[in-house]
């Protein structure tokens, strides 16, 4: 299959350049639509009032925080098993975005928790495991930068990404396995949604916007990483992109 040729940094570099504006554009359009639906179309909630509208940021951010870590672990497996250079670079490019979304989920959750629960923070299973996820992201970036030798840095951080992915199912199922202060799943693949449909659609639109944004910034970032690592390579010298 010809798609494999894009696993080479030299071919992916110009491809990423032509793709990222599309993803960024779609992200912007979806974010505008999602925010409009969330703040102007969706009705008030029957128990929480207006404060519930934090879910249009909070839930997509939390989902992306978990999802990006799984994608990084997937690239980690490829980097370790198949020694593909681009997977290690993608992993490195995704980490800051994942960390940002996780931090955003924790922060918006705290701001929402005070008026609804009566506290910014408690050490329940959902919140504690999400905080561990943020630390895993920070640890990943630190490890990746701490080791001088590029190949060893990639191997060590790939291993951390793979091992840390165990935490993702723990976060996701924590509200099912243990009594937590955090409420249960409103949306899950196995049961009917517990939300009014316009609220759900606004939330899903925002999630898609965050997803497209993540791809766009990862592509921009991976280009910088390729340019940095391949600085001496011939193909890069003549490249205008």
């Amino acid at each position, binding site marked *: 299959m010809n798609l494999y040729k894009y696993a080479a940094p030299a071919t992916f570099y110009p491809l990423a350049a032509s793709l990222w504006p599309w993803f960024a554009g779609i992200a912007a359009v979806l974010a505008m639509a999602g925010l409009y639906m969330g703040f102007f179309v969706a*009705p*008030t*909630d*029957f*128990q*929480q009032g207006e404060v*519930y509208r934090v*879910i249009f940021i909070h839930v997509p951010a939390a989902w992306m925080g978990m999802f990006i870590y799984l994608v990084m672990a997937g690239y980690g*497996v490829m980097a*370790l*098993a*198949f*020694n593909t250079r681009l997977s290690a670079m993608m992993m490195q490019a995704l980490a800051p975005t994942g960390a940002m979304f996780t931090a955003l989920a924790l922060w918006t959750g705290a701001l929402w928790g005070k*008026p*609804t*629960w*009566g*506290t910014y923070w*408690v*050490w*329940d*299973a959902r919140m504690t495991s999400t905080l561990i996820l943020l630390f895993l992201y920070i640890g990943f970036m630190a490890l990746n930068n701490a080791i001088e030798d590029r190949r060893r840095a990639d191997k060590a951080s790939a291993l951390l990404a*793979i*091992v840390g*992915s*165990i935490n993702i199912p*723990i976060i996701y199922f924590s*509200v*099912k*396995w*243990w*009594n*937590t*202060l955090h*409420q*249960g*799943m*409103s949306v899950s693949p196995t049961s009917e949604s*517990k*939300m*009014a449909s316009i*609220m759900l659609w606004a939330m899903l639109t925002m999630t898609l916007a965050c997803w497209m944004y993540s791809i766009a910034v990862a592509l921009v970032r991976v280009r910088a990483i390729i340019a940095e690592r391949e600085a001496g390579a011939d193909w890069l010298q003549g490249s205008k992109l």
Partner: protein
Amino acid sequence: MMMKSRHKRFIWIALGLVVLGVAVALVLRAFNSNLVFFFTPTEVVEKKAPQDRTFRLGGLVTAGSVKRNPDGLTVTFDVTDTAKTIPVSYTGILPDLFKEGKGVVAQGKVGADGVFRASEVLAKHDENYMPPEAAEALKKAGHPIEGKIFAGEKPLVTQPATQTPASKP
């Protein structure tokens, strides 16, 4: 059969992840009682909750049980999981979402008189999101909203069915 070294590595990674997963599952099982954020009234009655130190009690505030003392600050109410009920006494400000028939998590200790003396009360709401009109319509139609307060599958009615507004003749 000769396996390519990259396939071998892949299998090792997969195997390592499975072993790690089992190890984590065992650890979580062992620490299960430390991972629950609160205990249910049934667990408290069955003495599965800590006896001498403070713990958190979670459940639904029984409809009609909230009483304010003359001092204006102390509130008493019952917390139930529909099977067992624990009386709670609390002095302080309650969160906005504290309501009869809704979820609550209180931190404190059971006194000699069997009353749970709370030092902190948090509201725990369920996973339902809908406009007030929809909630009203559901109530009128006699379909109370079921929410999950406890881990697992069992949903509870978090809206007391008796709250239906009296219909005018």
